[in-house]
């Protein structure tokens, strides 16, 4: 009996030891999302997807926090750093200031900042060439549109969304210089990212004016544009994540910003102890942006459109097509 008991304890001890060492070996990863939250079906959702995939395949322990307001961003990052998380991922340009402050205080902690750049050495800044991806979906929209009236509804009126807009417009005009692009912005405060009813009203008004395709980089507000598309049986172009599945048949394509891939790669590098700081600007060439084609929009994108758009893609890669970048035009416009 006593032998049996001691065997049992030995067994428990070994199991316990094994379990605790495997926990110890797990690298703790902190993921701080912005206001959009993990189910915005868009930008934050993409980051969350990348991180959960990493959790599945790599030996990591993932902790996700959604920030309800901008004031709580910095404390969240600091808590992660204080608790000894070796890698903290901050999603969204609103986190830039918070990351800069906390990264300076914890120079040994690695940070990933998505959608904004900073020079601090322990931060890996990842930005995307949104204008290139937007150019592609703009061209697709112009090829698919029957009315040749094409809509754009931005979230908050900030340079980044203007960058989407300029790329998109150039894509449309590349196919048909006569096409009309209607542009709306939901607001000029951060509430614009979560006002789906306002987005829906704007979308209905554009659809009623004859627009048949709307592209809406506007965070969670974009869901309102999807509702309007469903109601009027018109088309919408998804943004950031592949949103083709959200309302199948209504979503022409999605502009992909491969936040998931970038997040996954950063975590992978951390597990291999080969994390690198610096600024990474991901465009078409780096497969950072793209358009989406899957079973949900296969029937909407004709092979002809697909062929043309892949040709355009190659031309952008060869620099035969130069996609205008709002950031550059903005810099030029600034009086020095």
């Amino acid at each position, binding site marked *: 009996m006593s032998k049996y008991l001691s065997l049992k304890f030995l067994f428990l001890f070994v199991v316990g030891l094994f379990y605790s060492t495997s926990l110890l070996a797990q690298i703790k990863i902190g993921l701080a999302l912005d206001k959009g*939250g993990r189910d915005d079906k868009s930008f934050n959702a993409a980051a969350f997807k990348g991180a959960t995939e990493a959790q599945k395949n790599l030996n990591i322990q993932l902790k996700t926090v959604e920030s309800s307001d901008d004031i709580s961003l910095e404390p969240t990052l600091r808590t992660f750093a204080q608790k000894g998380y070796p890698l903290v991922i901050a999603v969204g340009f609103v986190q830039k200031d918070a990351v800069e402050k906390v990264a300076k205080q914890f120079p040994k902690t690695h940070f990933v900042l998505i959608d904004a750049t900073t020079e601090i050495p322990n931060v890996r800044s990842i930005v995307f060439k949104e204008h290139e991806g937007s150019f592609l979906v703009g061209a697709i929209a112009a090829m698919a549109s029957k009315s040749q009236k094409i809509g754009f509804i931005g979230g908050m009126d900030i340079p980044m969304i203007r960058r989407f807009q300029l790329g998109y417009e150039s894509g449309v005009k590349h196919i048909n210089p006569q096409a009309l692009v209607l542009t709306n912005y939901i607001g000029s405060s951060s509430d614009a990212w*979560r006002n*789906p*009813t306002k987005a829906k009203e704007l979308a209905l*008004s554009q659809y009623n*004016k004859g627009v048949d395709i709307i592209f809406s980089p506007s965070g969670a507000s974009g*869901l309102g544009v999807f509702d309007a598309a469903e109601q009027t049986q018109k088309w919408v172009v998804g943004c950031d994540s592949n949103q083709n599945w959200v309302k199948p048949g209504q979503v022409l394509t999605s502009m992909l910003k491969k936040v998931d891939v970038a997040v996954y790669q950063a975590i992978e590098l951390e597990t291999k102890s080969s994390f690198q700081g610096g600024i990474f600007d991901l465009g078409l060439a780096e497969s950072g942006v793209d358009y989406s084609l899957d079973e949900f929009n296969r029937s909407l994108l004709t092979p002809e459109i697909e062929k043309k758009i892949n040709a355009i893609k190659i031309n952008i890669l060869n620099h035969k097509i130069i996609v205008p970048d709002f950031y550059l035009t903005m810099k030029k416009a600034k009086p020095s």
Partner: protein
Amino acid sequence: MIEILSSTLRLATPLIFAAMGGFLCERSGIATICLEGVLLTSAWAGATVTYYTNPYLGVLAAIIVGAMTMALHALLTVKAKADQIISGVAVNLFAAGITPILTKLLFGSSTNTESIPLHARLYSPVLTLLAFLLPFLIHFVTYRTGWGLRLLACGDGPEALKTSGVSPAKVRYWALSIAGAIIGFGGVYLSTAHASQFTRDMTAGRGFIALTALIFGKWRPLPAFIACLFFGFTDALQIQLQSSPLLGNTFPVQALQIFPYLITLLVLVGFIGSAKPPLAIGKVE
């Protein structure tokens, strides 16, 4: 033109419900700045119950939760005699906090509930029609029935009401609960008829705009109704102007978005004169 009109109707509907609810509260002598919070909780309840069952139960849930949220305000102000503004702020904060927590518990994300398919959503014109009949009903009840007169008396002179043997507390409990139920219609309209799901903070200040409309209408139901339509109209006009190719591409977005607020300011300063609130409002017995 028809487009501006229909957009106005859609945008004004939640405002009307909220303003009419606010009318009953304020006229009973309780300052109520928590219209926003009540809209939010009822929008959440409506969307969640509609998602799991059907739109009818969704409406019912929104009404009940709206009434309960407003009853909380009543409990704090009438029973606990808390400062009415502070209680209103508390209810707003409570609503803004509890809705994401419950959303996260049920749907795994704190930002939005699952989307409700088009066929399972509420047919919105029914609610809009209701919103347009409601001010007349409230006008009738307030000025033509005993209950309404007691409500007015409660707001202007609760002492006098007490001497005639009616408990002001009782009148206020009823007024606030009914108001909460009415605002519940506005909440469920927002989340299941106008949008297809609840998203965090989706009311986006509508409760406060409704309150402004109430003051704009000098605490009377029909003028407040007109004010709600006016606010809906300026918002609709702004949306139309923004997307009209002539102005939209040249006009700065921000300038257009100030438009409703600017008109409100101008009108408030210039036209309505002094608005007198119910006499007993904000006073703790």
